[in-house]
């Protein structure tokens, strides 16, 4: 968890409650008018498959993990620019040099500055969860992803996926607040999708039956992303976008 400046929002998803209805995915699409076939969040159906603990059929409700050490930020080629951030609760301000994608200091939410995004797609390729997409429906393609409904929580509204969750399986809150339910559930042993090789400090957690968590980890663990993984057309796009930016700067 990254609590340097204030809070770290996080989500715990209870697979015992989740019935795999996909409402989360659709509410997100509706709220942010995410064009088909792109997604900011998703529900994958797993199983039925045998596990050491019995047959499991469960779900992978996934979204941006708002990682503590986000790979997407590291690879963003846009020159850092100083920006002032303000905490809506305390009024406190912080100045920070950020790229086109950055971790908002008061919430720990990873955001994209659409004005400055050059649409290269490097962040899309870097995310080991596949949580980002490049919206090529726009005249100038831009990266997009889940924001934990940053705008909505500022207005006191829960994230769209949480609000619609039929089974109340999504628990959202501040991990730095010891009284929050997310904090308590994480303390109790909620798991994260990470491996020895890929551990960016994700802030989405899962709880559930042993067999279901086993299947989830087996099938949906993050995979290391390397430049070799990037397909030729995507590589070309990333290089071209960076080159164009360099030209503009020059």
């Amino acid at each position: 968890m990254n609590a340097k400046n204030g809070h770290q929002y996080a989500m715990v998803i209870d697979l015992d409650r989740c019935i795999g209805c996909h409402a989360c995915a659709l509410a997100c699409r509706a709220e942010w008018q995410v064009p088909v076939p792109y997604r900011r969040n998703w529900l994958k159906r797993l199983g039925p498959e045998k596990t050491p603990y019995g047959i499991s059929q469960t779900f992978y409700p996934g979204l941006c993990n708002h990682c503590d050490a986000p790979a997407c930020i590291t690879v963003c080629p846009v020159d850092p620019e100083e920006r002032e951030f303000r905490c809506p609760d305390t009024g406190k301000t912080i100045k920070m040099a950020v790229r086109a994608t950055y971790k908002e200091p008061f919430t720990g939410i990873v955001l994209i500055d659409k004005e400055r995004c050059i649409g290269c797609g490097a962040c899309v390729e870097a995310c080991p969860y596949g949580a980002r997409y490049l919206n090529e429906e726009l005249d100038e393609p831009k990266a997009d992803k889940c924001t934990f409904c940053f705008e909505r929580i500022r207005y006191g509204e829960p994230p769209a996926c949480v609000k619609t969750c039929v089974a109340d399986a999504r628990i959202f809150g501040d991990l730095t607040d010891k009284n929050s339910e997310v904090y308590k559930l994480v303390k109790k042993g909620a798991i994260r999708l990470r491996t020895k090789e890929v551990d960016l400090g994700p802030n989405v957690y899962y709880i559930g039956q042993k067999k279901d968590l086993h299947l989830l980890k087996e099938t949906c663990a993050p995979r290391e992303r390397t430049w070799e993984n990037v397909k030729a057309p995507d590589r070309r796009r990333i290089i071209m976008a960076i080159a164009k930016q360099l030209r503009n700067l020059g």
Partner: protein
Amino acid sequence: MKRRQFLKLSAASCAALAAMEFKTKGFLRPSSSYAGTKEQLPGSLGSKEITSVCEMCFWRCPIVVKVKNGKVVKIEGNPRSPSNGSRVCARGNSGIQLLYDPDRVKYPLKRVGARGEGKWTRISWNEALDEVAHNIKKVKAKYGSHALAFFDHGASAEYFREIFKALGTENYSNEPAFFQCVGPVAVAYLSTLGYIVSGTRQYVDMSNTKAILLVGSHLGENLHVSHVREFVEGLARGAKLIVVDPRFSTAAGKADLWLPIRPGTDTALLLAWINYVIQNNLYDKDFVKKNCRGFKELKEAVKEYDLKWASRICDLDQKDIKTAIEILAASRPQVVIYPGRHSAWYGKGDVQRHRCLAILAALFGAIGVRGGIYFPTPIPIGEAECLIGVEEAEESDTPLKEKFPFADPFPGSPTDEIIKATLTGKPYPIKLWGVCGVNLLQTIPNPYQTMEAIKKLDFIFSVEILPTETAIWSDIILPDATYLERYDHVYKNDELHPFITLRQPAIKPLGEARSPYWIAQQLAKRLGLSLFTCENEVAYLNSQLKEIGLSVEKLVQKGGLVTFPAKSYRDPKKGLQLPTDSGKVELYCENFADEDLDPVPKFEPTPAPPRGYARLIYGRVPVHTFSRTMNNLWLHNEWPENQVWINDEVAARLGIKNGDTVILVNQDGFKSNPIKAKVTPGIRPDVLYVAHGFGSRSPRLTKAYQKGVSDQFLITHYVEDPFMGASSHRTNFVKIIKDGKILDIPELRPLPPEIPRFEIRKG
């Protein structure tokens, strides 16, 4: 003959359940205040909010429709609703894409090509309505009222049904809600408990229970928000779950015990359990003594059915079935013996299977109690006079349901009987069909027969939103408004947290689509029927709401929803007063005996797959409703096509790998579209499973067309239920075709000799 009495019972069932006190607790919705121009706020923030009621399925969750710049941008649950709060399911969230579907029928259309070809020309409303009215009058004059038939489902259909009733025909189908779905379970509970525990809704208190038994019910895949919430809540509070299902469903994934039963043997298991409960004194003796009739006959009739026998018949582990019944018994009376919903499975034993479930619940005393079956709370609002016709249908000379002794209390005629009469002209010709809200070809067994019947008609019209495969067979299509564009009835919820609410338009109908009230009113006028005499929807809604001191305006002011206190449980000090003949639970059903039907359920095996075949079973996916939502852009993207579930051992023997493309062929030689194989240990080796509603045959549904496989087009053999005439859906068998070769399904679980095999028709 007890039929009339039976009819009275159903009326009594409402009255007998205690009258309720009415109290409004409405208050104004909290208004949210934002700075700046509201509509400029991101996402759906700052929208204009209109309370309404969803119709993406029939569950009708209260919703709030969010509108910005005249466009619907978001749909959420109505936070005032005690059943769903601010939640809606995937479909509820995607209503916008029904509204704005570019494939929608937005103008009245007249067929120009051959019937079924799907070629139309746009005509005016006057022309369309005149033509429909003219044809109705013509057919009625030439062949009589019975030559008119109407296939109906959903909110819109309710208006047009009144027209057909007033025209004097009994040939409306109340379909698919009844004759393809809940008919058998409705008869079972009406006969046993005197009221319909499972019709549109299922009155079981899952959130307060200690154990739940599901027999072939796929809660979670079959998704209704408040119901699933209660299910999840019950499990979260520690309720044990037993799932009896040949497939490892979503519910099975949460179960303490999954019993992968041989299809068609559920009644054997239930009878053995009933016997076990009686033999081992696990039943509620006091409850049975005070509130049940026919215990002695029951005990005698089930005494041969033991667990060992059931284990062999059902192909289940004897230890497991013993553990299961002991878990259920230990929880009584806080135990939910789930009544089931879609029960038109095998035709013959369906009513008796659900009778067994009702009997088991009664033995546990789980009737009218917290955590068991509960009573619906009557809500004192009648129908608006100006809406419902005063004329009753004339008594028919040869009603199509005459051979079904327990069909009488239910409205309409069995769907397949209407189709057969249309096809054969017997017992009388049927020459005109109206269709509203139901895609017949994707719903009724043997769609090939349905298409042949349509060819025999003088005229067929539909009132539809989308050009479904049934709509494209129509001579005239009248464009219906979606639920987001119109008013409808006052909706009453009589569950554990009763309320009333109403639908209202969020925007004006697109194109020339019109509200069903308007369409029905125009049609009634042309037919000279004195129906729909209120000027408009608001007028009839106000006449309905007046009775309880409300109006549309007042109800909307109260947040679109008013709650009522519930009367769901019986008074433990008093005995049960059920609306049955005896006022008690009818363990032994005399009405059945009078009709030469078994008064206590017996096990009669349904034919097993012929050698080389597997039984075709089907179910739902949580993002789709019937075959109605497959063309919805968002839902289609979420789940574009179905897969066929194949047992892993069977697949290994046949050389089929996960993701392989195969074709299914049924016992009558009908083939499916290509479909991907899902190879899994989560299904028995003697069944193949596909989700229902896919494989659209309408090229006008540009997204859904030919995507996935239609189970219905493989369901060509059906058996009628002898009680009320439902048509069976699980009586078909399939083989797999891979790379052009027809593969025999190996029989990995040998069949006991008591169970006959299905015999394939020759030629």
